[in-house]
């Protein structure tokens, strides 16, 4: 079973949060935190390229925004002739079959994989590595056969950013409620363990850690129940989709809004701005979907890419930078850290007006 409480990894990510990235400034999706390039000359091909993408699914808003990023990035590369997208609808079994299909089709110049789960997809990816270059992003695989694995700093980092903010803004011994989506998902587990450590070390009192299933109603109910039983000075969340529901629980109950850790969803950012909350929004940037394409194109052009990991910066939205990210024209669950504001079809392609 994977280990979600790895001090070494915790320390590494903690350090990465403060590392200054390499690569073009103010284009975080092209930046990388750890040096180490891979020569891809062997993969060099003439265009037009057929980029095949096996997607775990577009079954949540984060992936929807990300996938739009990816499509728009493709549009920026005339050398990409076709993007073949197969969607596994969140099933490992199906994604393995999809990859088989793509290989059988034999027209892919390169394969991009966003694995549904790490363990399950490893053999399929290994199989693919044998016949063509592979780029993996978001969740990883247990093999380094891919050209590179694109991902931001990671879960611990996410957890740390939020927890440190809370520690800095509440008194010692204050009550913190931790809200989690569901158990078992690697990125979420590390966020929790990272956050938990920081909060405990800061001597704060964790009144509870509850699973919300990412369900607004449930989130609101849970917070209401806790409020019935005592005061809450801060709320830490491992993801922001239900942050607004949590805030509403305080508002509707007539309680002051405590220190809040959400994520970069527009609805949360706007609530935050509107209520002048003391809050922060760590992010798991959707711009990594752009990076995946960029990495693919570099590879096919034989340009060196950061490898074995392309670690992207993972900035948090703070009270100082908030205004820069709030945009009422965007849909509620648009992830502001999309690095897409400058792209051609922004905001319409992302559902904005």
């Amino acid at each position, binding site marked *: *079973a*994977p280990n979600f409480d790895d001090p070494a990894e915790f320390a590494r990510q903690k350090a990465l949060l403060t590392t200054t990235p390499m690569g073009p400034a103010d284009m975080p999706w092209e930046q990388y935190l750890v040096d180490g390039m891979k020569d891809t000359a062997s993969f060099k091909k003439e265009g037009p390229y057929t980029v095949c993408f096996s997607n775990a*699914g*577009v*079954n949540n808003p984060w992936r929807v925004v990300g996938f739009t990023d990816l499509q728009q990035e493709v549009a920026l590369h005339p050398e990409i002739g076709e993007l*073949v*997208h*197969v*969607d596994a*609808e*969140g*099933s*490992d*079994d*199906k994604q*393995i*079959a*999809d990859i*088989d*299909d793509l290989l*059988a*089709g*034999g*027209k892919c110049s390169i394969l991009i994989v966003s694995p549904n*789960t790490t*363990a*399950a997809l*490893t*053999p399929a990816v290994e199989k693919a590595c044998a016949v063509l270059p592979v780029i993996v992003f978001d969740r990883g695989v247990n093999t380094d056969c891919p050209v590179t694995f694109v991902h931001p700093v990671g879960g611990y980092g996410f957890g740390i950013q939020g927890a440190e903010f809370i520690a800095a803004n509440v008194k010692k011994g204050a009550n913190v409620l931790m809200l989690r989506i569901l*158990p*078992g*998902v*690697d990125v979420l*587990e590390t966020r929790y363990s990272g956050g938990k450590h920081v909060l405990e070390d800061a001597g704060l009192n964790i009144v509870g850690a509850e699973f919300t299933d990412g369900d607004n109603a449930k989130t609101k109910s849970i917070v209401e129940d806790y409020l019935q039983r005592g005061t809450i000075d801060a709320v830490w969340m491992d993801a922001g989709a239900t942050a607004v529901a949590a805030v509403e629980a305080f508002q509707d109950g007539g309680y002051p809004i405590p220190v809040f850790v959400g994520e970069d969803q527009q609805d949360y950012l706007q609530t935050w701005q509107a209520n002048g909350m003391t809050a922060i929004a760590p992010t798991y940037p959707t711009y990594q979907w752009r990076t995946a394409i960029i990495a693919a194109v570099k590879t096919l052009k034989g340009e060196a890419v950061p490898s074995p990991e392309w670690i992207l910066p993972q900035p948090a939205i703070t009270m100082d930078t908030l205004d820069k990210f709030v945009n009422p024209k965007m849909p509620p669950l648009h992830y502001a850290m999309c690095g897409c504001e400058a792209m051609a079809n922004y905001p319409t392609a992302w559902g904005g007006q």
Partner: protein
Amino acid sequence: MTDLIATRPKLAFRFDRWAPALLLAIALLAYVVIALYTGQTQYLTVDNLISVLGRSIALGITAVGQTFAILVASIDLSVASLISAVSVLTSVIMNGNPAMVLPAIAAALALGLVVGLVNGLIITRLEVNPLIATLGMSLIIQGCLSAFVSNFAGSVPPEFQVFAYGGFGSLSYSLIFLALLAVAAWFVLRHTRFGSDIYAVGGNKDAARVAGIKTARVTIGAHILCSLCAAMAGLYLASRLRSGAPWIGSDGVYDLESIAVVVIGGTILAGGRGGIWGTMAGVIIFSLIDSIFNLAGVDAFAKQVLRGIIIVAAVAFYAVRSKRLVA
């Protein structure tokens, strides 16, 4: 006046028996046409068609079991969580150790047997509606499972991964296994007394009873087979995913999908009519639909819409001419 229901103009060609084959043919045709139309003829090779069949091994294995449950006029909603439970159980017991493969398989089948037995007992002895009984069972299994594990647990040794990944050329062992399983099921239904008892109990419980059949035992037996198949599907998935996780059953919606393919295969929910080959046709149809969607590059959401419509349309395809009043 019930004669009417009984009396039916004699027809040489019994449409409802051929409907699954017809549907399959239609699906195949669609696949070929789409492939040609989108100029992806490389997908029309035998190898590729075989790999299409390979798409839904787990669904296939589960559906074989579900066929027994539905034929006996019952139903099993607990297969999905049982699949998860078994996959976790196996990979935890094996935990990468080849020596533990057989014990793990034994344990998995044992679990399946117990679940099937309990389902059967609740349905026959407590007379709980099968839908509720197995739904409850599903919640219980899922609960117990998630109480212990929340992620991939244990791991499957390469020796066992052969089950999912090994094969003769493009013909995978798992596909052969499914084929054999189907033949075995057909054999049981066609050539054993238990098989004909299943049709009898499903068709008319009272008639079966007065003919001296212990109807409760038959129902329980059918549920045991159903759960055993689910257990095997769990084993297969553990081998394919190289480890078990508490969500793989529900992610695959094997409960509802297995019911859907069985019904599309012409086995009626009321029980007593249908068979394994229809179910197999249903499974292949599902695989083809998936492949067709990939070929045509249908987006995930449109896929869902179409799937829903296809399921209903396929069942309506022959249900529509039945005189029965359904609810």
